[in-house]
């Protein structure tokens, strides 16, 4: 009997697949035939660029939407003369077309990988895709067609390789990869099960072996080879049903109270891949990104808030005022501030000239949509009262200046243990948003970014604090939500639901798995 191995990874697109393992072929660099002269190498490069472009044009013809945009972008890069000219210069100095192209692209890929901005970093994958396409054409290797129904095992898969394959069954098992890459976005769109970060696996793992790939709320799993019990389990366990399509509006607890799934937003660009129809609102907009550059001004902030409100189409948007300072890394304006022990609302109240700009932008935007304001790191009653006074003060100024505005509902983050235990003293707040990260940090004195021991909402003391917040919120008739990392963690969902939490605000990529965890929990109520 063969030995059964289990490899764990990260679930990137939910579902399961059974099939033979398939791996991409050998690296191209072993096969390149030198042309013998710079002229020969030049011809080889120009031919390769034109055949590769033709391949992309053909691929674009069968694609639409996001897939065709990715191809159009790659085609624009490939036909740009910058890389071609740099490569030709190296060829003239004696390098082969293969080595020169590789060197030019490698430098550019390294440049993108070192970018500060995550979104620009991810473009390195597209450049690797382009680099590999030319290398393959130069070596006369045919494009590798992925056979139907296989589980692809690779370091990473390029976006164009994903698009080219007509997915009918099968799945994607990546040794590295990322849940926010172009491929992961495509996999979720096409309902292809995908697991990333499997690591190096077994050296002897061979193509053709029958494997089972599972991607669900519990994580990602590759089983080689699956036994009868594994196969039976996936068909019987509702937690690993393929292609679950939970509808957020169908989430209701046993008392008929709806469970709401909102999203957290750290930057406007994250909205690009999201559909406002599929969520219940934005439970937390982190506004720190507006303070990163030199151009912190009222109109730009106003424009950013308007963009979010327009996207949300009437659904509630909770915007948190600047939360910097203290132990929070502060590359932005807080780093110029000389009192590092101030954070969140404390810092804003200490710098009213900056805070008033944000207040004005928020109130002008509130005129246009369903905007709520959340104050971070409130620790004493006067934090809330002083902030409310500033809002009222700016409202008078806007009115006198004849500028359209509205006073938004103003709530607080509940993340300081003393506030959580005396919440009734903050009854002027319009809502309570539980920030589990700081709450846990300060209640159990865990340093931020703690290595080793990680305590979470499964800790009974934390669960009881959250339960208390929910019950006070109910008594005061104020909405309560959880927007810390716990709300994005499928493993913490059952504890939060048990503590009475019904409003979750989570990171967009975690939404499919959190919905599944909520479904699992609600299904267990029904039994």
């Amino acid at each position, binding site marked *: 009997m063969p030995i059964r191995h289990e490899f764990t990874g990260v679930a990137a697109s939910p579902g399961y697949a059974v099939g033979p393992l398939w791996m991409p072929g050998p690296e191209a660099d072993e096969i390149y035939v030198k042309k013998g002269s710079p002229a020969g190498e030049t011809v080889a490069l120009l031919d390769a660029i034109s055949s590769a472009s033709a391949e992309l044009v053909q691929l674009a013809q069968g694609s639409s939407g996001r897939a065709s945009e990715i191809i*159009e972008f790659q085609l*624009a890069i490939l036909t740009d003369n910058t890389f071609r000219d740099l490569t030709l210069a190296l060829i003239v100095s004696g390098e082969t077309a293969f080595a020169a192209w590789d060197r030019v692209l490698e430098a550019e890929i390294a440049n993108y990988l070192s970018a500060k901005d995550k979104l620009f970093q991810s473009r390195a994958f597209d450049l690797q895709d382009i680099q590999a396409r030319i290398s393959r054409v130069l070596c006369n290797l045919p494009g590798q067609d992925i056979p139907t129904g296989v589980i692809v095992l690779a370091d990473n898969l390029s976006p164009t390789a994903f698009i080219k394959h007509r997915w009918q069954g099968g799945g994607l098992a990546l040794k590295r990869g990322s849940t926010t890459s172009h491929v992961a976005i495509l996999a979720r769109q096409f309902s292809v099960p995908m697991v990333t970060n499997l690591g190096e696996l077994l050296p002897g793992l061979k193509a053709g072996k029958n494997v089972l790939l599972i991607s669900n709320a519990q994580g990602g799993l590759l089983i080689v080879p699956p036994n009868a019990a594994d196969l039976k389990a996936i068909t019987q366990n509702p937690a690993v049903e393929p292609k679950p399509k939970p509808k957020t509006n169908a989430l209701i607890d046993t008392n008929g109270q709806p469970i709401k799934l909102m999203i957290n937003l750290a930057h406007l660009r994250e909205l690009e891949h999201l559909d406002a129809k599929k969520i219940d609102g934005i439970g937390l907009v982190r506004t720190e990104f507006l303070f990163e550059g030199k151009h912190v001004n009222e109109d730009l902030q*106003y*424009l950013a808030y308007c963009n979010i409100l*327009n996207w949300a189409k009437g659904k509630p948007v909770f915007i948190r005022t600047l939360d910097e300072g203290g132990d929070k890394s502060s590359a932005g304006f807080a780093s110029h501030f000389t009192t590092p022990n101030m954070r969140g609302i404390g810092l804003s109240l200490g710098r009213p000239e900056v805070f008033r700009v944000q207040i004005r932008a928020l109130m002008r935007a509130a005129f246009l949509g369903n905007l709520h304001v959340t104050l971070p790191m409130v620790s004493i009653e006067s934090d809330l009262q002083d902030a409310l006074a500033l809002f009222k003060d700016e409202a008078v100024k806007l009115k006198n200046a004849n500028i359209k505005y509205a006073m938004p509902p103003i709530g607080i983050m509940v993340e300081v243990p003393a506030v959580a235990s005396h919440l009734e003293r903050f009854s002027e707040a319009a809502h309570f948003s539980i920030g589990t990260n700081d709450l846990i940090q300060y209640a159990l004195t865990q340093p931020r970014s703690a290595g080793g021991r990680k305590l979470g909402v499964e800790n009974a003391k934390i669960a009881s604090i959250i339960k208390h917040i929910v019950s006070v919120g109910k008594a005061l008739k104020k909405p309560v939500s959880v927007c810390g990392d716990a709300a994005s963690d499928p493993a913490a969902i059952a504890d939060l639901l048990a503590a009475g939490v019904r409003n979750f605000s989570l990171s967009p990529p975690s939404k499919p798995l959190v919905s599944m965890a909520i479904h699992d929990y609600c299904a267990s109520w029904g039994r």
Partner: protein
Amino acid sequence: MNSPTVVMAQISTKVCITHANGLHARPSVMFTQLAKSFVSIISIADKAQGPWLNAKSIVKVMGLKAPFGAILFIRALGSDAELALKSLSQLVENDFDGDCVMNGGENANPA
């Protein structure tokens, strides 16, 4: 040389990037496609003093990695320089038109 010497002045402008993603993949494709439709030599920079990059090359334009809120300096030299600057800055100001899912619309522009 018999042809009269035409002295063309280089003109320049600056525009703030209000597209949520900055000058990213799609916006860079649109920007370079528009730039290529002019005969003028067009270059861009993220600082007033340069370095100046070819605005018709997507590798250069995206390589600038200009984020949301950055100021983009554009300059042009050629017979259609004026129209080129006007069209390119309009493209940036209008958030690359259809590309932005949360396109500001008429309410989004501060009065």
